[in-house]
């Protein structure tokens, strides 16, 4: 549905988007993730046909944006970051104007506006001037605008920016509902949003695509799967036993878990065990437990280490954009050497 090849956008000496390439397939809900100023909005504006690219090629719904801009723009619904609307117009007037602008046939316009208002949940404010609406409703009107021509592709730039938690939940639910029969590309710098709504994410930093894949895959890019084990017994014995288990890449001591309500005679010891990237985590868990038990170490708890997406995001997007460091792992215990830029994860 979207094909981007070597896209760059330069403003004077500033390279806002630097040679990014990606694809979004039909039916996907893809999150475009990145910190403020990473180039998300610029990329989306190019995809929506508002800005021209300095270099590169963009195809939207099969149409090349440079060669067939009208057809490409007619195939997508775009919601800009701040949902800019005309405050003097009523909601229904505005959506009728937008439907006409988007070439919705005259006979279908009324039904299209009604459907878009229903989908976005703004039917009851149809006669209200937009200037009198709250931020949340303005966002919804922006969404209704994107939906009014019933496009197969939606590009939403930070659809939940500035909304309260209830509104955010509603918009996320709406996006998921819309995603059942549409392709959606949405940008955000809120990680939980991607986790809550998207099937896949693209991570952009300093104008470059630094990672691509499902949320789990992106997490795994930065840290290999690992286990956190709470044991009772000799630390050296436990480390030696765990390190010798098949599939274990490295083992180290870690902060002990919180004291349990029924304290054991000996203090608990924490172990962090990195699993070889190629090993099957479940099997390694079994082998580690077996090795520890056989070594006479008491296993009190074992949990897979979950890397917070915030941490992964921070590591992916922070720091110097040195080509070889842009997506390289933080420790030698992590994944194999990263390619220069895009860390594409096979889906």
């Amino acid at each position: 549905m979207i094909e981007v090849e070597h896209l760059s956008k330069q403003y004077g000496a500033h390279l806002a988007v630097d040679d990014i390439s990606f694809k979004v397939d039909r039916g996907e809900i893809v999150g475009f993730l990145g910190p403020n100023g990473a180039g998300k909005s610029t990329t989306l504006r190019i995809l929506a046909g508002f800005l021209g690219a300095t270099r590169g090629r963009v195809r939207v719904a099969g149409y090349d944006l440079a060669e067939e801009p009208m057809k490409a723009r007619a195939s997508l619904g775009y919601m800009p970051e701040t949902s800019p609307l005309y405050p003097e117009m009523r909601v229904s007037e505005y959506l009728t104007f937008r439907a006409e602008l988007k070439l919705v046939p005259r006979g279908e316009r009324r039904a299209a506006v009604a459907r878009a208002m229903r989908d976005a949940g703004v039917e009851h404010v149809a006669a209200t001037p937009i200037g009198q609406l709250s931020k949340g409703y303005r966002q919804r009107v922006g969404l209704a605008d994107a939906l009014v021509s019933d496009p197969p592709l939606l590009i939403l730039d930070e659809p939940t920016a500035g909304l309260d938690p209830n509104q955010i939940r509603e918009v996320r639910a709406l996006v998921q509902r819309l995603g059942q029969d549409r392709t959606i590309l949405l940008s955000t710098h809120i990680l939980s949003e991607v986790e809550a709504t998207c099937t896949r994410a693209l991570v952009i930093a300093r104008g470059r695509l630094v990672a691509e894949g499902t949320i789990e895959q992106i997490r795994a890019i930065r840290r290999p799967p690992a286990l956190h084990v709470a044991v009772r017994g000799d630390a050296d014995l436990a480390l030696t036993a765990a390190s010798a288990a098949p599939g274990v890449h490295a083992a180290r001591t870690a902060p002990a878990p919180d004291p349990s309500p029924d304290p054991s005679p000996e203090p608990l010891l924490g172990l962090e065990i990195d699993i070889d990237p190629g090993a099957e985590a479940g099997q390694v868990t079994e082998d580690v437990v077996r090795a520890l038990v056989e070594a006479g170490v008491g296993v009190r708890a074992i949990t897979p280490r979950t890397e917070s997406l915030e941490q992964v995001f921070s590591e992916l997007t922070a720091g110097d954009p040195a080509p070889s460091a842009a997506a390289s792992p933080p420790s030698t215990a992590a994944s194999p050497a990263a390619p220069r830029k895009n860390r594409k994860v096979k889906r």
Partner: protein
Amino acid sequence: MRGFWPIFKRELFSLFVTPLAWVLLTAFLLVQGLHFFLIVTHFANQADLAVDAGPVQSFFGQTILPYLPLLLICPLLTMRLFAEERRSGTIEALLTAPVGTTGVVLAKYMAALVTYVIMWAPTLLYLVLIQQTGEVDWRVVAASYLGVTLVGAGYLAIGTMTSAMTQSQVLAAVLSAMALVALFMLGIGEFIFTDGPLNALCAHVSVWTQMNDFSRGIVDLRRITFDATLILVPLFVAVRAVDAWRWG
């Protein structure tokens, strides 16, 4: 030209739903009403004098009074066309719809031009009043209104151009007012340079001389060519300006 009609309708709606157009309309008609009153009083007091011009010629052509307000009104009518849309961000939604830049520029410009024509429309009543007591040559009236429409069309095109070049409405208005005053001053040069090519140049761009011709029913192709240039060149620049900040 895709998108012309809905954008044109929205612009007209937008102009008249806010107080700006009404304030300008009122101010304009106050000035024109005063002007008409002075002319009628003048002719009423000197009815027995043999003159080569009637009230219609005087109203449209023998004074610069009706055209001075245009130096302010035209920039105020056009200042928000693009500058406000860029400042508020609505231009992003507008230009991501399947519309062409030329269609957008022409739709906004035509909305301003129609508003300008609406501002002049009530002055037709003055001519109806004159007809109650004398004769009015409606062909001369038609030529006069063609003249004022062409003058306004050129001024509004300049305003559209400056609005497309900046995000600030105030700056857009100031820039176009400066351009219009410069054009106006160049026209006044006709009375400073009494002879030679400078006089010819100044007379050519002089709104006063132009309207003097139109108010006598003289529709000179050279004047229409000049006005068409004054309309088309700024509009072309406006289209290029919009494309420049989109694709630049």
